[in-house]
């Protein structure tokens, strides 16, 4: 498969979205709404469900399948209110000691005037910083598109995994082409340069595992895809449940602080540098 074919698979309109997974792995899921400041962001679903016998907070970018639904979900592109809703639910999880699952599937945060007017940069900045303070286990999974700061704003976790045909990138191929070439039609070349496929991201040390998808990709078999994701999420979550809050926070800090330690750098980057 070419890199661009993988990008298209990651964005396939029949690919399972967050709610397709959440309803399968936590059938009693209750969706909760609103950032308690001004609005609810439908591009992010948030709520609680019973997962392997434990109340768990689920967060996930949500795309729509019909045109009406896509517009309502804003193609999975969050506004500032979405990041504030996510943090509100993270604090809910912290209060009750619930673990958190975050499913990532977004081209990026919403690139529009309204998001800018309401402080999208600060909302993402604050979310990224706050995740490091949340004292409960967090496992994130990239299930489709992991685009830019909009994805990372939901991706600070103790473990991060990726589905086989998902992508994770500093910017969408279109945005990268627009920045580097000043021409967003160079998206295929940008995608090839960015090393955004799951195998490449794993090799860089940015995710812990790539979860294989069923024959014909996740789009072909929602149940099997959900089962594989559920098994991997749970396997990564289990050891985290044994850690106390300070161990978790230190581990999360170190995970991102030294995330580039596989890179050939001089002098070598890694823990315990003067």
């Amino acid at each position: 498969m070419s890199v661009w074919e993988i990008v298209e698979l990651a964005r396939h309109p029949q690919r399972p979205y967050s709610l397709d997974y959440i309803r399968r792995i936590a059938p009693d899921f209750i969706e909760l709404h609103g950032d308690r400041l001004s609005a609810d962001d439908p591009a992010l679903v948030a709520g609680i469900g019973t997962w392997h016998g434990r109340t768990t907070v689920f967060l996930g970018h949500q795309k729509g399948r019909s045109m009406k639904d896509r517009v309502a979900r804003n193609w999975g592109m969050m506004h500032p209110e979405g990041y504030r809703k996510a943090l509100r639910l993270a604090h809910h999880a912290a209060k009750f000691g619930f673990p958190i699952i975050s499913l990532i599937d977004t081209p990026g945060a919403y690139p529009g005037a309204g998001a800018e007017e309401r402080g999208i940069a600060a909302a993402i900045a604050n979310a990224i910083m706050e995740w490091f303070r949340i004292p409960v286990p967090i496992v994130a999974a990239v299930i489709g598109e992991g685009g830019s700061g909009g994805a990372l704003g939901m991706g600070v976790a103790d473990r991060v995994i990726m589905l086989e045909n998902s992508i994770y990138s500093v910017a969408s191929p279109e945005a990268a082409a627009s920045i580097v070439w000043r021409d967003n039609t160079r998206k295929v070349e940008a995608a090839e340069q960015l090393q955004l496929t799951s195998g490449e991201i794993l090799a860089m040390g940015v995710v812990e595992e790539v979860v294989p998808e069923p024959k014909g990709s996740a789009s072909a078999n929602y149940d099997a895809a959900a089962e594989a994701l559920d098994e991997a999420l749970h396997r990564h979550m289990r050891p985290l449940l044994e850690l106390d809050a300070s161990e978790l926070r230190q581990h999360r800090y170190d995970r991102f602080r030294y995330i580039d330690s596989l890179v050939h750098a001089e002098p070598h980057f890694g823990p315990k540098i003067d």
Partner: protein
Amino acid sequence: MAILERHREQVAIQGGDLPEILLPTNCPGCGIGLELEELRAHNYVCTHCGHHFRLGADVWVALIADSGSWNERWADVRSHDLLDWTVPKPYQETVERLLEDGLNEAVRTGTCTLDGKPIWLATFDFGFVGGTLSIVAGERLARGMEQAASSGTPYVLISASGGARMQEGVLALMQLAKVNAAVGRLHDAGVPYFSVLTDPTFGGTAASLALLGDINIAEPGASIGFTGPRVIKQATYADLPPGFQSAEFQLAHGQVDMVLPRTELRPLLAHLLEMHT
């Protein structure tokens, strides 16, 4: 700000000592003919219209640090082209050429004093691949913040950045998390963090450390935002009003505490340091 008068007298305006920068013959703000010595003495702010010229890291260090106090750290840190990025330009060559030109990555950091008070200073350099947040930039920022947090030394940031560096892929994106984790440590340690946003500050830099200061100070006329205007227009076909994403716009939308002329920055920082330590 009358409260600053005392400091303005105490703290020497360091404009006379600033390194020379390349200037157009006429001010892009008002068209007046520019005279280097006059402009340099005025911190590279047009005396006629107040246009703030973009400054490199070396000029910012001279502007903020007390003379002779700058101790740069980790200037030798380097990373290499990890994605084999070749088009439209080989990334490794771009970086090597900039290093040869005397620039040293998109962020430089170190310790110095400001009005005699010890601080950590980090400054972006827009001349180095658009001041983009790279692995080296993130590493220098995180190391400095960790040391500032443990020593209790106030941290001052000058940003001028297009965001995360595309040519370093997802590891450039990860720098947002790496740096913000360290910003959290500064805040948890009760260490003052003053962030100065200059033209332009966008993307991953705005969406990480630049807007997380205890006090955010923007330069007049600076463009500050997450998504750049070109991408917003391409994505949404929106007409953006004049002044969209300006420092003044960000002040009106609650993102920065003040819009402050560069000539008043040093006295203000000195006063803020005194108030917070």
